[in-house]
């Protein structure tokens, strides 16, 4: 568990999550000639979700490379460049597009280190936009957190605020392993897709890294633990405020990284509260919620009095607003589930 971001911040300067990401990428580009960026619409456009805004101007087309719509080709090329000694950052525009290039990701990028008996290192950052809650329907709204975390060989990072985004991006680029950096579209701070409050945070101007595998307790509480990540950290915090008004004190745990998973913080929190609500924006079955609950059962079975989970109920993400709202856990649903859990 780390201290709250605010305690570590030296300047009061606030950044959006996307600006924080870009600042880290720019620093690494400036200071390490082996780093370069590849992706669709990342140069002139600056990334569809502003993950690379302004990089082309400072670093030019050789280091900030627009590529054809050929994900198998350019993601596999990132692997090859990494094995040849470079440190590529490659963007998969929407995580949903993994379907056209998954062989290069899970059969190649993720396995080379192991298959080579550790002889080969693969310092690739695969950054990708995840999540819904803006009616982009079944092929552009998934998070697929569980899919990427399930397959061994990739570290998986899901920042929920700007401070984390910068520290994790520096750490991802400097890491010698493949890191899947999943940024939630609703958290980027885009003028055309407003973020919840609390995502924009003070961010130090100097470079810094954050360790993978340390969850953060965003709010303490004695009555139940809400374990979540990404966008739903903010929904859980909003729910916790409302729960406090009716006398239910919820602890909110932000997982921050899925691989490695901070099982210790999950278990400790459950030992304190005895009740666990897992909130996820991925499909319910065979995924993140099950993994977190299994962790609590394995580590704190004696303390575990009640468990619930909220996730996408095993349907593709529908388009129409009432349908998407129904399947993507909202603040009201979290409040209701937490109250029911507290009453058990």
């Amino acid at each position: 568990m780390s201290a709250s971001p605010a305690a570590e911040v030296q300047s009061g300067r606030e950044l959006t999550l996307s600006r924080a990401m870009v600042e880290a990428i720019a620093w690494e580009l400036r200071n390490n000639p082996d780093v370069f960026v590849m992706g669709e619409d990342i140069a002139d456009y600056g990334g569809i979700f502003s993950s690379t805004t302004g990089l082309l101007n400072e670093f030019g087309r050789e280091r900030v490379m627009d590529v054809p719509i050929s994900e198998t080709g350019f993601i596999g090329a990132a692997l090859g460049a990494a094995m040849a000694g470079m440190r590529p950052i490659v963007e998969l525009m929407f995580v949903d597009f993994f379907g056209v290039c998954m062989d290069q990701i899970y059969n190649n990028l993720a396995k080379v280190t192991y298959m080579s008996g550790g002889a080969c290192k693969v310092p690739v950052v695969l950054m990708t936009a995840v999540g819904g809650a803006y009616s982009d329907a079944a092929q552009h709204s998934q998070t697929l957190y569980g899919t990427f975390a399930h397959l061994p060989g990739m570290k998986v990072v899901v920042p929920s605020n700007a401070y984390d985004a910068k520290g994790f991006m520096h750490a991802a680029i400097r890491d010698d392993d493949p890191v899947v950096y999943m940024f939630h579209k609703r958290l980027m701070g885009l003028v055309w897709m407003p973020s919840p409050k609390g995502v924009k945070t003070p961010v130090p101007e100097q470079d810094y890294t954050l360790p993978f595998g340390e969850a953060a307790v965003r709010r303490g509480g004695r009555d139940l633990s809400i374990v979540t990540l990404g966008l739903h950290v903010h929904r859980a915090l909003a729910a916790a405020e409302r729960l406090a008004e009716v006398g239910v004190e919820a602890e909110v745990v932000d997982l921050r990284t899925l691989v490695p998973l901070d099982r210790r913080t999950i278990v400790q929190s459950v030992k304190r509260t005895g009740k666990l609500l897992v909130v996820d924006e991925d499909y319910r079955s065979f995924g993140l919620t099950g993994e977190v609950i299994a962790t609590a059962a394995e580590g704190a079975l004696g303390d575990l009095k009640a468990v619930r989970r909220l996730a996408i109920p095993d349907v593709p993400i529908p388009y129409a607003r009432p349908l998407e709202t129904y399947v993507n856990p909202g603040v009201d649903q979290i409040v209701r589930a937490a109250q029911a859990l507290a009453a058990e």
Partner: protein
Amino acid sequence: MPNIEDLKTMYENMVTARRYEERLQQEYLVGKQPQFDISAGPIPGELHLAAGHEASAAGVCVHLRAEDTVTAPHRPHHIAIAKGVDLKRMTAEIFGRATGLCKGKGGHMHLYDPAVNFACSGIIAQGCPPAVGAALAYKKRNTDNVAVAFLGEGAINQGGFFESLNLAALHRLPVVFVIEDNEWAISMPKSRVTDVADGSKRAQGFKMAGTRVDVDDAVAVCEVAGEAIGRARNGNGPTLLEVQVHRRMGHFMGDAEAYRPAVDRERHARLDPIPRLAVELRKQGVTPGDLKEIEARSHRRVDEAIAWAKAQPEPAGEEALQDVFTNPFSARNEEALA
């Protein structure tokens, strides 16, 4: 030269499609001003409009029957209109209504109308393999139906495209691939993603017929498409067509197009295939009054579809749980958790 009735059909489809995109553009901005929020208003989410692409769809689809299959990409409206997709239900789908083609589940990138064998996908080039499959089915069943896959020029560097060409050529399948070349893959101009300016040349590597239509002209498209579809119907194998079209709007609504030079936008706006076809129709003896009548009828049809769609009910939230399977299983196993 296509016959006059076909020319009029093409004109009507093009005028309808243009009106449709212009009206959707207005509707899309409702609730999104002054501050643009992609998730607000009666049409939330991404919206990819096809103004400037009309000649391609009209010129190809005029040769098709309801039983022929068409797959479209993320920019599908003009193709759906030319293929005869139910306009009211398609519009209701775009407005996310319960009576939409897909009950509000699909949205504008995922429109399915089995009555006219139309489908689309939001994933680049991924309509190609299913079109090959439809063609395979037609061949196996000894019909003379054909399949047509529409895709953008940005899609032709995707693996699924090449695999589809090879399969189609290998089995001499009745399929036509139509590349709509609007010169831009979001912000990436064609010249920066391939060194082969003529996309139809990719056919040569598969011993497949390939033709490029260099002018944004529905008559020219109609002629080469007629040849390609005839070849497919007669069992003589697939064709790759590339058709020059233009992008009169951004990649999606809300795209400020900061990457795009103003002269390029102006050039695309100038090269409009609709007045070009009107001139041809006049040459063939169609009166200005006839043209006006076609235009008025098309506009009325679009306006009625939009009014109808907006009056339709929204789906209830629980509807989200239906349709995952054609044969759903019982909820018995879930009850164990209650």
